[in-house]
């Protein structure tokens, strides 16, 4: 951590946050918010939390911004929020002051940055750092904590991604056969701006060149999560971003040819199923749920420790699959207003 650099970063983050709230043009606010995410990512990296920074860059600044942009496109660009009454504002001010002062009060109790004797560093973290290699053969401790020691949390986080997709799909999806030749569909057409299909050779060629490399890199991120920052979430988001790029630069039809609506639903569920399925296999082999070590009984030429390492790769693939397809599916729902015909 470099103090001066951090201070500059934090000031810029504050500025971005205030600007994002202040700007009345929502598209501008979204872009500023993207900048906010990038700065956050730098702060994480400065604090040596490379995995978190990676995720923030891929999700917060990358795909999150695309989602917000497509939402703004299919709704409205103007912020028409009613101004709060003076009493409400005063009340909010007091609440913020109380919470803020409570946070300030605790500053004296917080440990120094990088203090090795602080409880957060001394109690469990030291166990993970000392025993991760012996327990799991995985040098990247973040991955071993994420996918093995606290693997149940990660399974549920994957589930959250799955829920996010199913939720957005269930709420937004409109069937064509239902609204065809219907009053509501005409109103729908009027309310929702339809987009001119832009056939830009430059964009198509550029994304044509980029997509294979993005996907290759994503696969590397997924597979190399044991040894370097990365893993299922980050790799999955990059894969999803490559699919979204395909849908943006060409049209919906082309991307739906690769991955149709039905396949999207099946693959999202399959990803979580891979993760939970590995856990259930462990149950059948006589271990506890997600106790990967018993997998050595069915994996050829692996001892119980190596089995943990292999199973972690398996669950990371499940995570990557769910995240990839969810990101793509959420983008399709948001940008086409749930009609799956044309989008950005």
């Amino acid at each position, binding site marked *: 951590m470099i103090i001066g650099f951090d201070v500059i970063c934090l000031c810029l983050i504050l500025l971005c946050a205030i600007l994002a709230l202040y700007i009345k043009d929502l598209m501008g606010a979204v872009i500023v918010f993207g900048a906010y995410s990038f700065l956050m990512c730098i702060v994480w990296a400065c604090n040596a939390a490379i995995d978190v920074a990676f995720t923030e860059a891929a999700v917060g600044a990358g795909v999150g911004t695309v989602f917000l942009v497509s939402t703004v496109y299919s709704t409205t660009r103007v912020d028409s929020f009613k101004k709060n009454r003076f009493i409400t504002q005063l009340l909010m001010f007091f609440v913020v002051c109380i919470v803020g002062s409570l946070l300030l009060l*605790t500053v004296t109790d917080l440990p120094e940055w990088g203090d090795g004797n602080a409880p957060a560093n001394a109690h*469990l973290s030291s166990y993970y750092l000392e025993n991760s290699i012996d327990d799991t053969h995985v040098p990247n401790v973040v991955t071993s904590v994420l996918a093995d020691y606290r693997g149940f949390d990660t399974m549920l986080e994957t589930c959250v991604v799955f829920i996010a997709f199913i939720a957005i799909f*269930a709420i937004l999806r409109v069937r064509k056969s239902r609204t065809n030749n219907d009053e509501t569909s005409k109103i729908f057409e009027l309310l929702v701006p339809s987009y001119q299909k832009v056939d830009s050779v430059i964009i198509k060629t550029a994304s044509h060149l980029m997509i294979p490399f993005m996907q290759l890199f994503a696969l590397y991120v997924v597979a190399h999560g044991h040894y370097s920052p990365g893993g299922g979430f980050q790799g999955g988001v990059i894969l999803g971003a490559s699919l979204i790029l395909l849908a943006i630069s060409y049209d919906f039809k082309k991307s739906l040819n690769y991955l149709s609506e039905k396949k999207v639903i099946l693959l999202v569920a399959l990803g979580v199923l891979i993760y*939970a399925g590995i856990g*259930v296999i462990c*149950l059948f082999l006589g271990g*506890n749920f*997600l*106790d990967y070590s018993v997998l050595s009984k069915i994996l050829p030429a692996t001892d119980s420790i190596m089995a943990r390492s292999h199973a972690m790769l398996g669950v990371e693939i499940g995570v990557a699959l769910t995240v990839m397809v969810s990101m793509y599916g959420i983008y399709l729902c948001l940008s086409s207003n749930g009609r799956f015909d044309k989008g950005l």
Partner: protein
Amino acid sequence: MIDQAPALIVVIPLLAALFITVIGVYKPRLSWILTVLTFVITSIFTIITLKQVVVIGPVYYMFGNWPAPFGIEFVIDHLNALIIAMISIVALLVAIYSKHDVKKELGDKIPHFYSLFTLLVTGLLGITMTGDAFNLYVLLEVSALTSYALLALSKGRAYIATFNYLIMGTIGACFYLLGVGYLLINTGSLNMADIATIINANTYSYAVLAAFLFIMIGMWTKMALFPLHGWLPNVYTYAPTSTSCLLAPLMTKVSVYVMLRMMTSVFNYDYIFNVLQWQQVIVALAVLAILAGSILAFRQDNLKRMLTYLIVAEIGYMVGGAWLGNVNGFTGASYHIIADGFMTLCLFLAIGCIIYKIGDSSLASMKGIFKKMPLTMVGFLIGAFSMIGIPPTCGFFSKWYLLSGAYEAGAWPFFVALLVSSLVNAILFFRIIEVGYFHALPEEEPNHNHPKHKRDEAPLSMIIPLLTTAGLLIGIGIYTADIVTYLIRPFINTFL
């Protein structure tokens, strides 16, 4: 197989949700029967676990076979064994009940509804069983996200109501996470039992205070304690019937459970009641919640909306009971989680039947309802009696424990508020009985000669869960002594 039960209780609904999603693409009709089957199996496992806890004592389950502070642990003790049984039975009853209603209200979204439904219950069961503070947050996220989606599946004003809920719920979850963060800074651990031993060995610092305060505020927001209750009435009023039947009994009660768990298993009794000494303030808040809920309920002429305000009042019961800080108070609060869950379920199921047949739930359309839907109204009346607190329904016993707790603690305002709330409930429900029993059906006033045409009950798949719930209210009331001696007292003995 039995020692894997704690994992299976969560894993079976989770896998079922995935299968429902996949099969729903091809055969949406199968999703209902799959959901019901899932919850039959889950209920069996929860009841086996409950029995095991009573006989042997708390059950511990280590995920990934990592010992407690390093991995994630499920701890099922006497309190949460009871609550997971309640959650799975409520889920089963609502799943059976939802068959016709979902077909009518949601159309082609049935498989998504059921997959979100099962995931929501997965989340709630997990929250109740987990012994890990961060795992609890993840499960909170699972249940919160699914509940937003389920509520927004309705149309019209439900969107705005759900959006408000989304903002409030997220703020609540953020506060909880902030609290857990402070605990991690202080202790370096996320396991509840581990945190408790480390915190109690040290002197209490401001950071511990902040952790406690943030976790409590987060949970109060989630459970809609009085000044933070704004989101609740609209959300439950505009939600699809089956969704509100599932959420109203479970969501707020699980938050109350988390508050109890945090007060007893993470921060200890001595810290909360002797060092901080906030009990007066919180009990006053609870009194306000009870009075405000009752008064606001009085002003509603829509039954469903009236019930949502009664939930706000009931939350006051449980928070007040827990913060009285004596054995009877804790007993009342813990027992009321179960009692109120089934009470709310019973009333919401009955109102769902009425909405299914009549189309709305305003007081004016209740005329002649007793003749039209006698079975539904039997269920409704038993639920109402329990809400008022008439023996032998379970509502009476929870109120009894809460009143004796208030008496012992000398918390007279709380004592009076409980009685006033009972009185208000009595007036509210007798108003419905008056309209429903003594006012004739509007279109039938000219000729009384066709009594057979008047009966028009909801389908059997809706009536059976309703009457089962009503039976459970009486059953739980009769077995109160057993529940208290074998389940709630052993739990209270661990910290008092």
